[in-house]
C-alpha cells in the first residue's frame, strides 16, 4: 500500500522542511520561542516555551530522500536552541516500514512521541487511538481552515477533534528530458491528451524506442487516480461505503495507461522503479513522479537535463494526485504530561520553519506562505498555481488497506495485461466494497 507511497514520500520529506517553513512563514505575528506568546491559549498548550523538567522526544519521520538532510538540519537547530530542556531524537525510516511499526511501537512505549505522517493515515491512526488531539496547538498557532487547502485541513479531523498540523503538500509531476523533447522541437511539455500522444509519436519516430514507460507498481496507482479525477470520476463515496473508481472514468483512465503500452510508447511489464532509473539514464523522455524526486535528480543525475511540469490533462479536467505531510502527537507522549507539553512546543516551533522546508522541495500547505516572494519563486510552487487541481485520497479509516488490496492490485493487473481494464476494475471494486464495509464496522463507535 503505502509502501511505495512511503518511499516516494520520503522524497516528500524534503517537502517537510518546506512545510515547516511554510508554517513558520505564515505564523504571521506570533513569535514562539522567541519570547512572544502565541495567541489565545487553547486547552493546555498556549504557545509558550516549555518550562518543565528535561525530556527526550522521539521524533519519527520517513524523510529518507533528498529531504532528509533538511529535516535533520531543522531538528539540529531545534536541539541547539532548546537542548537544555528538550532533546529531540530524529528517527528516519522508510515510510513503508514506519507506518506498520508505529502503532506497535507506540503501544510498547518504544515509538515516537511526535511524528510526521501522510494525510490519508491520520484518520486510520486516530481511529486506532494511536494519536492524541492537538486542537490547542492549532489554536496557539492561530491556524485556521481558510488558510489551507480544504482537503488537507479536513484530513486532520476525526470525530470532531483535530489531530494534525499540516506541514506541506506534494503532488505528482511530469518530468521531461529537455534534450529529447528538443529533438522534436518542443520547449514545453505537452499539456493535454492530444498533444501528449502526438509528442510521444514524434519522439518514437525520432528514434526514442520507448519514450514513456508505464509502471505497474508505484507510482502507477497515483497516475491512475489522477486520471480518474481528470475523467470526472471519484475514488470513494461520501459515506465511505462504496468504491467509485470502477466507473467509466476509471475504465477510461486505466485504458489510457494500457494504451501507452499497446501503442509502443512503453515497453510491456516494466519492473518496479525501472521507469525512473531509465529516465535518469536518458532512456525515457517523460515520466510522472512525485515532486520529491527533484532533489534526487539534482544530486544523483547531475548531467541529466530535465524540467518539471504539471501532469498533463488527459481526461478533460485538470487534476493530480496530491498528499500532505502532517505533524501528529502520539498516545505515547500522551502518557506523560511533560512530554506532551514539550512535543507540542516542538511541533509549534517546527511548523514555523515552513519557508525553510519549502526550500527542500515541498509546497507549503498554507496559502499565505506560498505567496511570500521567497517561496513563490521556488520551481515546485508553479505546480500549485491552481489549487483546484489538487486531489487527495479521502480520509477514511483503513483506506490504506483498501488501496493496496484492491485499487493498486487492479492497476497492476491491467498494466501487466493479466486482465482487461474493465475486468480488473470490476474485481477490484468488488474487493474494495467488502473491505470498506469491514472497515466501517471495525472503526465504528
Amino acid at each position, binding site marked *: 500500500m503505502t509502501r511505495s507511497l512511503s518511499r516516494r514520500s520520503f522524497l516528500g520529506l524534503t517537502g517537510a522542511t518546506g512545510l515547516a517553513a511554510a508554517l513558520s512563514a505564515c505564523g504571521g505575528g506570533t513569535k514562539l520561542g522567541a519570547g512572544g506568546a502565541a495567541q489565545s491559549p487553547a486547552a493546555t498548550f498556549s504557545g509558550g516555551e516549555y518550562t518543565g523538567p528535561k525530556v527526550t522526544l522521539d521524533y519519527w519521520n520517513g524523510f529518507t530522500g533528498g529531504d532528509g538532510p533538511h529535516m535533520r538540519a531543522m531538528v539540529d537547530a531545534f536541539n541547539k536552541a532548546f537542548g537544555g530542556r528538550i532533546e529531540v531524537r530524529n528517527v528516519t525510516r522508510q515510510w513503508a516500514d514506519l507506518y506498520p511499526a508505529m502503532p*506497535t511501537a507506540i503501544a510498547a512505549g518504544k515509538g515516537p512521541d511526535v511524528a510526521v505522517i501522510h494525510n490519508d493515515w491520520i484518520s486510520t491512526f486516530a481511529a*486506532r487511538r494511536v494519536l492524541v488531539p492537538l486542537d490547542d496547538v492549532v489554536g496557539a498557532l492561530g491556524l485556521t481552515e481558510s488558510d489551507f487547502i480544504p482537503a488537507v485541513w479536513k484530513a486532520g479531523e476525526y470525530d470532531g477533534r483535530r489531530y494534525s498540523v499540516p506541514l506541506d503538500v506534494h503532488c505528482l509531476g511530469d518530468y521531461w528530458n529537455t534534450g529529447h523533447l528538443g529533438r522534436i522541437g518542443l520547449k514545453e511539455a505537452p499539456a493535454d491528451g492530444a498533444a501528449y500522444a502526438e509528442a510521444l509519436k514524434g519522439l518514437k519516430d525520432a528514434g526514442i524506442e520507448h519514450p514513456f514507460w508505464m509502471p505497474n507498481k508505484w507510482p502507477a496507482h497515483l497516475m491512475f487516480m489522477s486520471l480518474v479525477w481528470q475523467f470526472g470520476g471519484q475514488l470513494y463515496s461520501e459515506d465511505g461505503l462504496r468504491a467509485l473508481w470502477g466507473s467509466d472514468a476509471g475504465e477510461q483512465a486505466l485504458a489510457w495507461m494500457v494504451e501507452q503500452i499497446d501503442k509502443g510508447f512503453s515497453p510491456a511489464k*516494466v*519492473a*518496479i522503479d525501472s521507469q525512473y532509473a531509465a529516465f535518469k539514464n536518458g532512456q525515457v523522455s517523460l515520466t510522472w513522479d512525485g515532486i520529491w524526486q527533484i532533489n534526487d535528480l539534482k544530486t544523483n543525475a547531475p548531467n541529466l537535463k530535465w524540467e518539471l511540469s504539471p501532469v498533463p490533462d488527459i481526461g478533460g479536467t485538470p487534476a493530480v494526485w496530491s498528499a500532505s505531510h502532517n505533524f501528529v502527537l502520539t498516545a505515547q507522549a500522551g502518557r506523560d504530561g511533560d512530554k506532551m507539553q514539550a512535543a507540542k512546543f516542538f511541533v509549534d516551533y517546527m511548523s514555523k520553519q515552513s519557508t525553510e522546508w519549502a526550500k527542500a522541495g515541498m509546497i507549503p500547505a498554507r496559502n499565505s506562505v506560498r505567496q511570500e516572494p521567497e517561496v513563490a519563486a521556488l520551481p515546485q510552487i508553479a505546480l500549485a498555481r491552481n489549487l483546484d487541481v489538487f486531489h487527495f485520497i479521502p480520509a477514511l479509516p483503513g483506506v490504506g488497506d483498501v488501496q493496496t488490496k484492491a485499487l493498486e492490485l487492479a492497476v497492476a493487473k491491467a498494466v*501487466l495485461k493479466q486482465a482487461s481494464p474493465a475486468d480488473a476494475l470490476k474485481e477490484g471494486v468488488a474487493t474494495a466494497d467488502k473491505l470498506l464495509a469491514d472497515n466501517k464496522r471495525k472503526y465504528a463507535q
Partner: protein
Amino acid sequence: MSVPTASGVRVRRMRPWTPWAFLAPYLLLFAVFMALPIGFGFWTSLHEWDINVPAKPFVGLSNYADLFDPSSVDGPRFWTAMKATGIFTVFSVPLLIVLPLLVALLMNGRFRGRNLYRAVYFAPYVLGVAVVGLLWRFLLDGNIGLVNHYLGLDVQWTTDLPGAWVALIGVTVWWTLGLNSVIFLAGLQDIPRELYEAAMVDGAGAWHRFRAITLPGLRPVTLFVVNATILASANMFGQSYLITVGAPADQTKTAIYLIAETGLRQFDMGTASAMSFVLAAFLMAASGLVFGAFRNRRTAGDTA
C-alpha cells in the same frame, strides 16, 4: 532404543528434581515461545484481533470460513499465495537436492584448490537474503538489467510469469546451494573409505558404487536436507519481498509473505493466524510424506 550404558550410570541415586533442573532453562523458553504461542495463536485465530483496537470480538471459526469462501476478500488472496508457495517449493526443492549433491561429489575429490572452490559455492549464502535479493533485483531488471543484456533476452524476470519463478528459483539455488553442499559433503566424508575399496576390488563401476554405497550412505543426511529444504522453501519470503515484491499482481506473493503482511502490517491478526494454521496443516502433511517415503525405503533396503 536400548540404553545399556546408562544402566551403569545409575550407580548413585539422584535427587528427583535433578533432571528437571537440567531441563528447566529450556522448558521455560519452550513454554513461553513454543507451547504458549501455539495455543495463543489458535485463540487469536478465533477472534477479530487487531493489536491496536481494544475490542477483540470472538468470531468462532469465521476467519477460517472466510479463507474457504471464494467470495471473501482474504480467501482468494490466500489461495493465490498458497499456490505461489506450492509452485516455489515443488520446483526449488529437487534442484536444491540434486545440484548440491553433484557439487558435493565433485568437491569430495582430492584436487588442488578444493577449499577455495568450496568457499566459492558457499559465499553467496553468507551474504544473507537482503543483499542477495537487492543485488539480483538490479541484475534481473527486464529492461535495464545485466542478465538480459548478456543473454540477449527480453524476458521480464521480475514482472512476468513464468519468468519470475525462474528468477526466484534460480536466485534461491544460487544463494543456498552452498549450504546443502556442505551438509552433503559432511555425509560423504562419513562413508567409510573401506566400502569403496572393497567394491573396487569386486570390480564395481563408478555408477554402481554410487548407487550401492554413496546413496544409501547418504540417506540420513538426505532426509535432513530434504526436510530442511522443504521447510525453508515453504517459508520463502525475502526473495519475493525484495525481487518481485509479489509481482505480477501478487502471484509470487508467498503464503508466509501474505501472513506477515496481513498480521504484522495490516494487523488483521485473527485472519493471519487462521492462515498460518491452514498453511501449517499443509506443511505437516508434506513432512509426513517425506518421512514416510524415507522410512519405507529404509525398511525395503534393510530387508533386501
